[in-house]
Structures are given as C-alpha cells and as structure tokens.
C-alpha cells in the first residue's frame, strides 16, 4: 500500500489542494520571485552581460545617489505621477458621470472612449509624435502656422516635452478608468438617490455625501492602479523620443527608461539593477501609502 492510500479523505483533499496550488506558486516563484531576488543580488554586483559577475558592495547605490541624471529622472517620474494620476482620474470621473446619464448612442460613445485603451501604445505614441512635429509635417504646428500663429516646440523643449508626452498617455488610460467608474456608479443603489430627491437635497450634496463616498473602493483601486502605471511609464516616452531617448536633456526621462538605457545600451547591469530596486521600493511605498490613506476607517 502506497503512502497516498494510507491518507484519510481529508488529508487527500489537502494533498490535492496543494497540488493545484503548487502550479501557480511554482510559476510565480520562477517568473517573479526568482528574478526579483536575482535583481536585488545583482544590484550589489558589476556585470556587463558578457563577463562574470563581480561583487561591488554598495558601489552601485553610491553612484546612483551621486548621479545628477538619477535625481532628474526621479523628479520626472514623480511629475508623471502627480500630474498624470489626478488629471486622468478627474477627467475620467467627469466623463463617466455624464456618460452614465446619456442614453443617446450610449454604447457607441462608450466604445469611442474605450478605443484608445485597446490601441497599441507604440502605434499611438508614434502618431502623436508626428502630430507634435514642427512645420511642415506636424499636424498641430501646421494648424497653428496656417493661422499665422508662431510654432510651439512640443517635443524639442525642456519644459513642454514632458506634458506633451504625458497627454497621450493619459488619453490612452482614460477608457479603462471610465469603464471602471461607470461600473462603480451603476453599483450605487438607486434608492439612495430617490430618497435624496424626496428630501430635496442639492446636487452637490448628493455628489459629496452619496456618490463619492460610495465610489471610494473604485477610487482606491483606480488611484493605486494608475499611480503604478504612471510610475512605470515607458513605452510612450521611449517611442516619442527614440532619437534622443528621454530627451531633450533628460527632461522626459522616467526611471524605467533610465533602467532600460543603463542595462541594454550601456550594458551596466548591476547599476541598472540598483535603479530597479529603487523603483521597486518607490512602488511599494507609494502603493502602501495610498492603501493606508484611502482605506475605510
């Protein structure tokens, strides 16, 4: 009699449960936890992808701390977050709130808002990149020029470039946030609103006392989700500035692009890993903070 046959029914159930659970656990260990641990180890080493890894102590972190580009990039990353998240949330809430009331062509309008979310970020970034070009090929500048207005340097400017890159990124994420907001709005029982109307409460009070508080779980989810998205912004920036990645003068460079550049153009894997660990810590702190601030008391 084998070992398995001697087990009780309950023990067998446990074995099966663990058996099924083992698959995702093994998967996660292999594709998530092992590389994460490896990256942390690598951040204390020096490696150019070709030779052997050598220990470097905390050298990579010291270099990082003294690297002016890193602090610039650090700042940019938070600008993406601090502009991107509130703007996209407010926009998507306003659109969802009004779209919820629209009956005429409701499905079509909703689909139009959702469409950018389904579009490849690379394709979208390139189209916007051409929109932003100076005369004679840029859509926006050609439009301005035809009215005799001076051209705007969208991408070749240390001040305009970041907002110009951020705009399509916000637009691309709107569709998803609108759908989630609408689901949240639909989930609020109609009876609350009816009761409020009977009591003759003002529209603003309904919004602040009923709609927003009951949307809190939705808002928490979207804030955390979009914050992580903006902290990890890469494809829009990379594709809109491929000639001078993250430029001009690093004014659009987010942390992920710096990591990519360090790892796969300069082949300085240890330094890139140190940057990755810093990004990991930032993501962790921001997510925990938001969960704590926005959770139900």
């Amino acid at each position, binding site marked *: 009699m084998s070992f398995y046959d001697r087990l009780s029914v309950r023990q067998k159930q446990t074995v099966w449960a663990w058996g099924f659970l083992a698959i995702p656990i093994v998967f996660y260990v292999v594709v998530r936890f092992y590389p994460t641990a490896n990256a942390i180890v690598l951040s204390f080493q020096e490696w150019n992808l070709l030779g052997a890894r050598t220990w470097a102590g905390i050298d990579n972190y010291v270099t990082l701390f003294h690297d002016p580009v890193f602090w610039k990039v650090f700042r940019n990353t938070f600008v993406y977050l601090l502009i991107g998240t509130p703007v996209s949330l407010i926009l998507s809430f306003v659109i969802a709130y009004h779209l919820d009331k629209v009956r005429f062509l409701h499905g079509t309008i909703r689909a139009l808002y959702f469409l950018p979310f389904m579009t490849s970020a690379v394709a979208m970034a390139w189209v916007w990149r051409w929109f932003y070009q*100076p005369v004679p090929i840029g859509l926006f500048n050609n439009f301005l020029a035809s009215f*005799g207005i*001076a051209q705007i340097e969208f*991408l070749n400017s240390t001040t305009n470039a970041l907002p110009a890159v951020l705009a399509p990124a916000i637009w691309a994420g709107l569709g998803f946030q609108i759908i989630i907001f609408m689901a949240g709005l639909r989930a609020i029982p109609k009876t609350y609103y009816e009761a409020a109307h009977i009591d003759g409460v003002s529209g603003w009070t309904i919004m602040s006392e009923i709609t927003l508080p009951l949307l809190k779980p939705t808002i928490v989810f979207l804030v955390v989700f979009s914050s992580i998205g903006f902290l990890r912004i890469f494809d829009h920036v990379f594709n809109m500035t491929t*000639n001078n990645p993250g430029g*001009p*003068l690093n004014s659009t460079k987010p942390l992920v692009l710096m990591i990519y*550049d360090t790892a796969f153009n*300069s082949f300085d894997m240890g330094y890139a890993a140190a940057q990755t660990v810093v990004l990991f810590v930032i993501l962790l702190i921001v997510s925990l903070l938001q969960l704590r601030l926005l959770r139900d008391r």
Partner: protein
Amino acid sequence: MIKSRRMFSVGAMAAVMGLGSTLLAGVARADVEIEYWQYFFEARVTAMDTLIENFEAANPGITVKTNQFPYADYRTKVAAAIPAGEGPDVVQLFYGWLNDYVDAELIQPLPTDAFPVETIDEEFFPMVQAMKRDGQYMALPTAVRSLALFYNERLFDKAGIENPPATLDELVEVAKKLTVRDGAGNLTQVGLTSGMTAQDHHWWREVLVRQFGGQPYSDDLKTVAYDSEAGRKALAWYAALDQEHGVTDSTFMDEPQAAFKAGRAGMHIDGSFRIGALNDTRGLKWGVAELPAGPDGTQSNYSSYWVNAVTSKATDEKYDAALKFMAYITSDEAMQIWLDTVGELPAKPSAALTDKNQNDPVYGPFVKGLGYAQSTVFVDESGQRQLMTDMVSRIELEGQSIEDSLTEAAQAEQAILDGFYQ
C-alpha cells in the same frame, strides 16, 4: 512496455549505425559543421548566404550553419550561449564591443601563422589595427563603412548649384541657397540636415574637430582631448549652422534621413549603409560627394565596421574549419560580394581601391573617404553619443555658452572613459 523496449532497440541500432557512418565519413573526409551567428539585417544575411555557399563548394566536408537574431537580443544571446558551450564557432560583433568580448573570454585570438600580423597590418585599412590585442588580431572585418555627403540633385538644379561643396565654407554657402522658409519664417526645406542623434556626432568628433586642428582623444585613447581651442571652433561652427546661418534644424521632419528621403533637404551626411534605402526611394535623384574639407584643406572621415571572430567554443576540427571560414570571409572575393550585395565597403585597399570602385559615382566618395578615415574606440557608444546630443541641446535650449557646454561634455565623457579604463 514491449513497445518502449522495441523503440529502445531501434534507437540503439540507429545510434550505432549513425556512429558507424560518422566514423566511415571521418575516414573519407572530416565532416565538420560550424555555426555562424549574425544579427538580422536582410542584405547582410543574403550576402552571408552567398559567401557560405561559395565557401562550402570550395571546402567539401565543412558545412556552415547560420543563425541570426534581432539586433536588440543579439548581445544577450551570444553572451548566454558561448559560456554554456552552445552557440557560434564564428561570431559577428561590432568593433566597439571588442574589449567586452575579449575581457569576457568569448573570443580567441587569430593564430599568427594563418593570420600573420604584419600582413594584416599591411593589407587592411589602418583603422582595423584597433582589433589587435597583445600583438595578435582578435577579429577582422569583411566590410567597413564611412561617411559621405548625399545631395539632392533636383534641388541643386533648381537652385542653380553645379557642384557639391568641397570645403566647409562652401557647404554653408550652398546650404543657404537650398534653405526655404515659408512666409512666417518656418523652415520648409533645410539646406543641410543635422542631428547629433544620427551621424553628426561622428562627423563632429572625428572630422570637424580634426579639421579645426585638434584631435578628439589622446593618442592612448584614454583621455578626452576635444576640450581645446580646436574643439571650441568646431562646436561653434557646428552650432552656427542652425543658430546663425539658419540652414538646418535638428528636429526638422523628425529624423535627418527622413527629410532627405522626402526631398526636403538639400544635403545630408550619412553612412554607406544608407545607399540601399535611398535607392529604393522613388522620385529621389541624389548624388554623393566626399565630406567637405576643413579650413586648411584637411580631410577626415569616420569609419565603423562589424568584425568576425572565432569564439572560445571552437576547438579541434571545428577550430580549423572556423579559421578556414574566417580566411574566406576576409578575402578580396568575399569583400567584393559584400559590396555588391550590402553596399558596405571592402576592408582592404586592394579590394576597395580598385578603379571600378573609386570611379563608381555612388561608392567612389565613400571609398576615397576610407583612405583618411578614423575609427573612434568607443567604450559605450550610446552613452558617448548622448553626451554629444546633450552638448548641442544645452546650447540650443538652455542658452549655455559653447565653452561651458563643451567642457561639461568633455568631463562627462572622461568619466565614462575612466570608468572603463580605470
């Protein structure tokens, strides 16, 4: 059970027979298969396939298996495969990566009996000597690339310009005639394309700095030397193209080569690898000229190249076969095939400087440029290019002075060099 046993015996028989036939073949002739790795670029793959066909016909018993990867994954794959005993026996790499490959012991030196150093020194263009380590060549190119001035013949005719500019002063004058602005002063056609992100960083470093009397790096290559009077003059001249003469704009039409392809640029400095793309552009009539000479007549050019090397994985009969293959792909015959297929120039004067090539209206200027070309020994090409881009951006966007911007770039590049050579 029975089935699997039968399968086993069939397998064993096949293995024995296979072994027997290999042994037999070994007696007749050594059948060797070597593997060659390159990055994927269609014309290069086609050229290599032709070379392999010729090589296999001339060397019965040796077969060459090729494998190509997208450029982005290439280095990672090579690095992972060779130490694991997999991967190529002969590998293609960018000349700027040689130090990394040598340090990581991924490639082995070419033996001096088959590849005598003096002969190579003599036969190949001088810049190839950068491939020597401790008196032995580590790698050799089939082809090299250089820069030249592309010009749009239709725009030249329209502006009544007869000849491409031969000096930097003429370049500015011609560019002025070719520049077109609309009523509001917006550029709609540039005289000369520009952009440190494209080929201009090579042009500035190895050509302009030298033409203004300086040199980009010290002779031992470990020190940045362009933070000098010559460097300042070269940078001032370059920045004036946009800021003073208004004949160019680095953001015009997104990319320099796009502006030239679209017929919106009079002149464009680019490498020989651009020829293929321009040939395919309908409606574009273009010519090529040597890079303009400097104020005192100095000519210079920048050359880069991909090399082939025998990896440390190749041993015994594979090593011998790999050497034979290396010898063939660096022969004059292979170089001419490469030029005809890819458009990249032969790495030996004997193959490059033939009358046919020198008088070729398209290849001629590139080939002549090779005679006086320099190769920058990069330690981090993209990092070093970025510094050049930022150097110009600081002047254009932040109004920094030429002196300060140059010094800042030189210091940052010195830090990169120090980090490597320390």
